[in-house]
């Protein structure tokens, strides 16, 4: 498995931070604006010249309604193709359509055309939507530690891995340092590794540890160290 740290685009300190703490790769969070103006080449360039691997771009600021959301994602897919980025991560629209699977067919087609994978956040998908995935290059980021996010324990996580299409796994601590919450991270990682998962793992929103900067670097450091140790323990 490859351990990734999430960093914000344009905050160079965070790239250095990721490198110093030994992240295998970064996922860059990028605020999507007008889809016609989306340019992801600078994102890939900065990561590359910083000596890091880019595991994907996480799109933020996407629309809640399906059509503008789909338009934004389509623009990002084309921009990712131009920039040589192979993975986009995002949440599905907040306002779910009962026909999301059908609606996504156009996105699936664009993803296939561009050769860029889309990872939808499992914690934002209804069970029936989750069951529809993977669909071509539209896959899933399995979110663990959030009730109802598609896997509440090792057994469910393994089932999701067996169903295929898990491109990334994210552990949410729910405001606590990883290892202090309800989810048994080592047992879950051992289980999904045993099921053959070998992709990206990352921590979710970092906890606030005492007084800290707005991106909670102390919490991010704690969670990255925790996941690194658990991965070393697996070996």
């Amino acid at each position, binding site marked *: 498995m490859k351990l990734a740290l999430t960093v914000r685009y344009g905050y160079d300190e965070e790239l250095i931070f990721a490198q*110093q*703490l030994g992240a295998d790769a970064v996922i860059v969070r990028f605020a999507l604006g007008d889809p016609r103006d989306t340019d992801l080449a600078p994102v890939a360039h900065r990561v590359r010249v910083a000596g890091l691997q880019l595991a994907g771009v996480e799109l933020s600021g996407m629309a809640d309604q399906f059509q503008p959301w789909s338009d934004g994602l389509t623009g990002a897919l084309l921009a990712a193709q131009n920039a040589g980025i192979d993975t986009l991560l995002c949440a599905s629209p907040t306002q779910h359509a009962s026909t999301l699977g059908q609606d996504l067919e156009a996105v699936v087609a664009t993803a296939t055309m561009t050769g860029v994978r889309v990872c939808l956040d499992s914690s934002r998908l209804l069970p029936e939507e989750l069951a529809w995935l993977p669909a071509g290059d539209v896959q899933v980021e399995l979110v663990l530690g959030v009730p109802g996010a598609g896997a509440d324990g090792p057994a469910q996580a393994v089932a999701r891995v067996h169903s295929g299409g898990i491109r990334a796994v994210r552990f949410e601590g729910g405001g606590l340092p990883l290892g202090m919450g309800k989810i048994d991270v080592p047992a879950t990682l051992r289980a999904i590794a045993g099921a053959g998962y070998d992709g990206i793992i990352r921590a979710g929103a970092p906890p606030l540890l005492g007084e800290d900067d707005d991106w909670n670097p102390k919490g991010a450091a704690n969670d990255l160290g925790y996941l690194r140790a*658990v991965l070393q323990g697996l070996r």
Partner: protein
Amino acid sequence: MKIALHASESADHIAFVQSLGLSDVVCGMPAEINGVVPVEAFEQRRDIFARHNLDWGVIENLSPTLYDEIMFGTAERERQLDGVCRTIENIGKAGIPVLQYQWMLLGGLRTEYSPTGRGGARYPRFDSAIAQHMAAACLDWMGGGKHRYPHVPDRPLSSEQVWAHLEWFLKAVVPVAESAGVRIAAHPDDAPVPEYLGVARILIDVASLQRVIDTVPSPNNGIGFCMGTIGTMAGVDVIDAIRRIGGQGKVFFAHFRNPRGQVPSFEEVFPDEGDIDMVAAVAAWQEVGFDGVIRIDHCPGVVGDNGRADRSFAFQVGYLRGLIQSLATGAGQ
């Protein structure tokens, strides 16, 4: 084992320690009065931590200002010994079970703090060839007293002399520690080189740590097992050392740190990239049944960090917790 940080009494630092989910802290000595630290000073500090549900289980370290004449073997040592004994009695009265001390006459040693680490992180480094001609290699981390660090000695001291001073100290102090219910733990010489500026350094291998234990056999006489320091001892395997010292129940306190290299030169790196197999080390701690406090030790300098290095310490706390939980659930098997 219980993960701890070296904590201060500041509200911000306490909040940081609490938010990490820790319940144990270690801390240095309160101020002395006429060579003795009064019981009230310990109780006051203990109570500050206790109000935040933090247990102060280890005093780190015995202030050198209380016993520097003893280490150097001067005519003043009898006077200092009385103060040390009364201080240990006060530690016992305050209910603090472990006191770590060190026997580094010239303090800890480093020669560089350079941005040569992973991603430009700053790594403390030691190179014996440089230290030989560098009086400033003494880390100014002890402070105070006639033999204030850094200190350029006015005469050489042999290994035999320094051992004799330590044995005199142990024979006098261990019975007091027994009566007080305090376990005293010797920290090895960091860096573990045999001599610096003409003064011998004696706790530089596993055999010397065993000699401390054997000098005054007692359940109250043991070792502060600094993984980083022991990992930099020439030819020493830390896992074997954990089994040997820890297997006797003689580790009263431990430091968690991973170096790269051994004397004559080494550097302190992140715990996931050093020479010690930390998975095997934590497994060894569990194997010998160590249930004491293990404190996150020095750590590399990380971009944007504060003066306490909270980011770097947070990484190491998470790392150690991850190892402990992995091994507890069998993920490491």
